[in-house]
């Protein structure tokens, strides 16, 4: 019973933990390297693997937490996470069938949607074109870190939630 509860809450807790770590106000390498979207990785992963453990409501909450902790305008990342979730949800079969480098590419597409949405909302919010380089940097870092993050998420899923389809 306890292990079932742990398995149920783990995806959301990991997403929230990812948001908190990514938004720790510590400057790594003098701020040259932007933090990756650690909160989006569990949302994307469990949206494909076990959407019942990561329903849209929790994607909304994780996005809201990202907004609160990042210090930016309210709602930007909430909207970005929900938009990404909606598009991934519509193309689940295509995304879920990817493996290896294809899975990395799948996440790159999802992260691009999230960053593009945030960029667009930000541009509308301030009615000016924000510089593209910082967003591209965040996107690149997110894709780069998805590889180790996905390995960690797979390991957690197997231990706490259950086996993956590829395990059979």
């Amino acid at each position, binding site marked *: 019973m306890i292990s079932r509860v742990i398995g149920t809450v783990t995806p959301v807790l990991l997403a929230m933990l990812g948001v908190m770590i990514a938004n720790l106000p510590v400057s790594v390498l003098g701020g040259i390297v932007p933090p990756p979207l650690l909160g989006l990785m569990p949302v994307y992963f469990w949206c494909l693997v076990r959407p019942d453990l990561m329903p849209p409501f929790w994607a909304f909450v994780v996005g809201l937490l990202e907004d609160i902790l990042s210090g930016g305008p309210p709602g930007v990342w909430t909207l970005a996470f929900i938009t990404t979730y*909606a598009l991934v949800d519509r193309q689940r079969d295509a995304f879920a069938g990817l493996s290896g480098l294809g899975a990395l590419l799948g996440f790159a597409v999802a992260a691009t949607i999230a960053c593009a949405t945030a960029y667009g909302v930000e541009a509308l919010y301030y009615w000016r074109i924000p510089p593209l380089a910082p967003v591209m940097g965040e996107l690149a870092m997110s894709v780069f870190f998805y590889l180790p993050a996905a390995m960690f998420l797979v390991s957690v899923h197997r231990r706490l939630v259950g086996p993956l389809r590829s395990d059979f």
Partner: protein
Amino acid sequence: MANGTFRNTRSRGGYQLPLTVLFVLAVAIVLIGKAQSTLFDRARADVTDWMAPGLQIVHRPFDWVSGSWHNVSEGYGVYEENVRLKEENARLRQWQTAAIMLQSQVKRYQSLLHAVPDPSLSSVLAHVIGRAKRPFLETMILDAGKANTVKPGQAVIDARGMIGRIFLAGNHTSWVILLTDLNSRIPVTIEPEHSPALLAGDNQKAPMLETLAQGAKVKPGDQVVSSGDGGILPPGIPIGTVIADGAGYRVALLSDPATSQEVAVVDFKNPVEAPPVPTARDLPVTAAGLPPAAPPPAVTTTPPPPAPAAVVPKSVAPAPKKDIAPKPAATAKPAAAPDATSPPGDDPVEDQ
């Protein structure tokens, strides 16, 4: 790293309705946030206050790594930099002497002209306990908050110049919006032409100069200081030097937010300008030798006064009759009056 679906508990697209509702809700949050940008400020301030003790411990190794990286990246040109700094130092020493002389001269002129004194400035020293560089926000977190009289809008400076301003103050921590941040816009003055402009951040190292006045003569190397327009920031805080950027101009900042450890939060109190107390000589009718005007009608609505002389202030009432004929004694007396109202220490002789 397989993304296989072990147990797909629902059909694809089964979340259409919740997603639509949440999408609308997210758009509503953006719109409400646009109307009231402080929507999440309380939550942010509480979270930062809660995290402050941990941040103070965590930020040290990160800052050490960050500082080391900074030193390594700047270490290659250290010899040339040293030569340049020595030359600059010699030049600045000459300027320092000139500045001291000019400062005493200005002070003397101010006292001679009875100029309005500069606004009082006090500051709170704070330590940087966090830095964050996100795509849409560049910020710094300080270990001073409302408990230390830190308020949103106050300027944050380091030993070299202005870094930014407070935009969110918790009880024991505060967030600084850097001058380079996308959301930062402050009124500045470009010296020596004294041209007004707006300094706008765009997440690049050198913020842009915007809204230059028509005919403003700006050239690279001009100094940029805060203008104090709007009464929020104190005037004259050094910010940086103008550099050319294509058709426009940017400002190379004097401060370096990436390495600043201790900063000062400047509390700027714009003095309330009180009009001088009028003397009998300042009233036009009195100066013209006429009796003062009758009291306003509002006084007559109350029970009638026993005599007009009782309504008129005593210091003004006897003056007209005495001053009808210009007498040396009468002119000498009002001349002494402003001295009584002028602030202490305005004696020009004392300053010279």
